[in-house]
């Protein structure tokens, strides 16, 4: 995967195409990266798309409560709605000679039941919006947790080296040795079937809590972020300015957080959008398998699962969240590439050289 191929260059002046050394000399590297990103129209478009998805998803309650006037979480099997001025049943009889089978209402292309209903009679569009909220919260939350934990572990392992490094790295290898989905499914099965949820002292986590899929996904991706961070720390630790700080008697914490951390944080910043895309995909897969977000709460994965049984008659139930996942992941991947190019222009050159070499 592209995100794991990223290897930042050692510290030094990195020039983006069209930049001169004079232009970048003495400038704040974050400011420089911001300028480079602002010049990348594709990345900006991706950012705009992602933000639009975030805004729309977090505006779900406004849509459901004030525009469509629907409850996307309650079963409405025997409910009715108004379409073109006529009162119709949300779940309608299948018809035919035997009158068997019940069909949820299809897309009305009006504010109520815009994309139709699912088999519980719930408004699919409103659920897709709410589902986006859950998917984004879990995706961003787990990516952040994963990156923070991996960063801390990478700093400790890379700085102290020796037995500490060996121990942390082997634990990471152990986690990495499990296929991601097998590990996530195993964890989810255990956590979701705990009779009273999870209890750590006074903290109780309900089995339906979004924290459970968030932590599970965060945990399985820690090694993926840990490895490049640790490599970067090992490299930075040998730099002259770090040795100079050591010679000046700087404390361990100062060395880690003042001298090394600022020089490895770019790795995390570049990986974050790509990690969010990956974790959103993982969340959707777990929810599709009924071991992520628990109904009646919605995530894009659960909605696709709901729609699986309606593919013949009501394909929009599965297609709509699928489109949202594609757009979100695509925008995050493009944005991630843009951030990488902005923070480390040499990475782009390396990629180009690699392609030419092939």
């Amino acid at each position, binding site marked *: 995967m592209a995100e794991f191929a990223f290897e930042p260059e050692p510290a030094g002046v990195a020039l983006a195409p069209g930049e001169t050394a004079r232009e970048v000399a003495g400038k704040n590297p974050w400011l420089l990266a911001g300028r480079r990103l602002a010049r990348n129209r594709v990345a900006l478009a991706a950012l705009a798309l992602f933000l639009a998805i975030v805004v729309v998803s977090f505006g779900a309650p406004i849509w459901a409560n004030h525009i469509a006037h629907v409850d996307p*979480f*309650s*079963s409405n*099997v*025997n409910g009715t709605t108004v379409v073109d001025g006529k009162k119709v049943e949300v*779940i309608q*009889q*299948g*018809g*035919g*000679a*035997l*009158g*068997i*089978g*019940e*069909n949820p209402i299809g897309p009305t292309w009006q504010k109520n039941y815009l994309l139709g209903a699912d*088999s*519980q009679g719930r408004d699919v569009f409103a659920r897709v919006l709410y589902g986006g909220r859950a998917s984004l919260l879990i995706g961003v939350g787990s990516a952040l947790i994963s990156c923070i934990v991996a960063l801390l572990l990478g700093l400790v392992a890379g700085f102290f080296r020796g037995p500490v490094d060996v121990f942390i790295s082997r634990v990471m290898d152990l986690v990495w040795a499990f296929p991601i989905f097998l590990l996530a499914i195993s964890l989810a099965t255990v956590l*979701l*079937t705990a*009779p*009273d949820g999870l209890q750590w002292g006074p903290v109780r986590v*309900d*089995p*339906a809590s979004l924290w459970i899929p968030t932590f599970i996904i965060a945990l399985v991706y820690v090694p993926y972020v840990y490895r490049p961070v640790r490599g970067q720390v090992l490299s930075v630790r040998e730099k002259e300015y770090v040795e100079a700080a050591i010679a000046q008697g700087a404390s361990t914490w100062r060395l880690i957080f003042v001298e090394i951390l600022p020089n490895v944080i770019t790795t995390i910043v570049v990986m974050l959008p790509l990690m969010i895309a990956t974790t959103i995909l993982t969340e959707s897969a777990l929810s599709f398998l*009924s071991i992520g977000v*628990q*109904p*009646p709460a919605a995530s894009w994965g659960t909605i696709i699962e709901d729609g699986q*049984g*309606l*593919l*013949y*008659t*009501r394909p929009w139930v599965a297609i709509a969240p699928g489109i949202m996942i594609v757009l979100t992941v695509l925008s995050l991947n493009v944005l991630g590439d843009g951030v990488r190019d902005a923070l480390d222009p040499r990475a782009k050159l390396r990629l180009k050289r690699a392609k030419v070499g092939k």
Partner: protein
Amino acid sequence: MKRSVILATVVAATGMFVAACGGSSKSTSSSGGGGTSASSTPGADTAAGAKGGTLTTLANAAPSGSPDPQVNYTLQEWQFLIITHDGLVGFKRTSGAEGATLVPDLATTLPTPTDNGRTYQFTLRPGIKFSNGKVVTGQDVKATFERLFKIGDSPNAGTWYNAIEGGDACVKTPKTCDLSKGIVVNGDQITFHLSKGDPEFLQQLALPFAFILPADTPAKHVDIPPPGTGPYKWSEYKPTSAMSVVRNPFFKEWSKDAQPAGLPDVIEQKFGLSVQAEVTQVENGQADWISNTDTIPADRLPELSRKYSKQLHVNPLLNTEYMALNTNVPPFDNEKARQAVNFATDRSAIVKIYGGPQLATPACQVLPPNLPGYQAYCPYTANPGSGKWTAPDMAKAQQLVTESGTAGMRVKVNSDTTDVHKAVGEYFVGLLNKLGYKATPQFLSNDIQYAYIQNSKNKVQFAYSSWFADYPAPSDFLQVLLGCGSIHKNSNSSPNIAQFCNKDIQANMDKAGATASEDVNTANTMWAQADKDIADQAPWVAMFNPKQLNFVSSRVKGFQFSPQWYLLLAQVSVK
């Protein structure tokens, strides 16, 4: 029996049910069981056809567990076993309520029990041969029942057939099983002596566990069912691809009621397709029928109803779908809380989720219609009195929740992940939240859900389950599912999921069981009263009684739906 698969052999192996629930406890098992056919159901086809051809049926997977006829507990295999083997008695091979009646099969007549219901005397029909050419003798009968114990894991050896004198000793030491005292053979005369009366003994003899096998059949699991006496013999059993039966050259029809000659030359069942693909194959005429183990997706029903209505058959089943309320765990250890959920449940919504009123009927009680002892009763409806459910009564439900003082409590709604069951679970999560509880779902894989909800250790509060009759008897529901003897603490084989035990009701059920061998009508009245008493205490939210939807190819003629065996495969013509 339970429709889902898995547990039959586990139950048998652990012997959890040993006579614990008054003589009629059943293990969980796989697909289907009894039902009640309605010959006048829409799409029914009673025109008999010609002999010959191959009837091709489809199932997603092979029958669960061993193919051994004394071990397998799936309707899927039983539908084949009943045309390759016979018992001393059998269920009449016909559609409609008559299909639940017993008729003599290998025996000449149905015996009347003597000695307070402890002795049954049979006379073997002369000259009937196994498919290997050997004549059936009394020794084969005795050896069959000894093998049933010797094999070690026949599901109901320790719950039904141990009633035969010597049976309990055989359960303890299967290898040295000797039923000489319990089954006395004298030429063609076979006398069964039971250690205690069992009014359902003849029905138990009509199930495949008791089908007669050659005496030299080894007492270990077979890879393909051994020779039998039916019109067909097994020719193939490959769990990964297919099973099939062909004509038995030694078969001569001796009783049209018990074992009529078959119409197709070959009957096969292919495994491996998804149900969606199976529907398409039957639509295209590439196959003739989808096994009852595979539920036709709700998404395809409107299409089938519109385009293939003449190929659809809808038949009622002896089955109740229910939510079990754990009477030992809050909030449903409170009777008012249980009644509140019953009043609040919109059974018409659940029927809709299942596929609509053509495929299911709302229910409030344990016993399904058409089962002996059934008397329509529904106290949990708006305007009660008619015995039928009409509408939920939310006001009454809210009032009962308030009176119970259970509002605000956490409830975990347990169901499995199959489409319909999960949807019903979601419905109840919403309903319980409306009633003031804090409900969350707990959806488990179909493979583990039934075992999980039975185990009291898991403190399941509210769980989806269903029950199919092994044979048409009220005890098969009431004693097994709600009898005190069916509670096995910390066991995965504890079918009384609600852990409901009321001593007065239990005493009445025991009395009804004892009365059955002398006066069936009185016993049925007593069972009906027990059914009502249980409904009043609301250990379940009985939801609906489903119907079986069969989809056959356009060339299938002579569709017959037995309440016991469902589609009678051998009576179908594909010529």
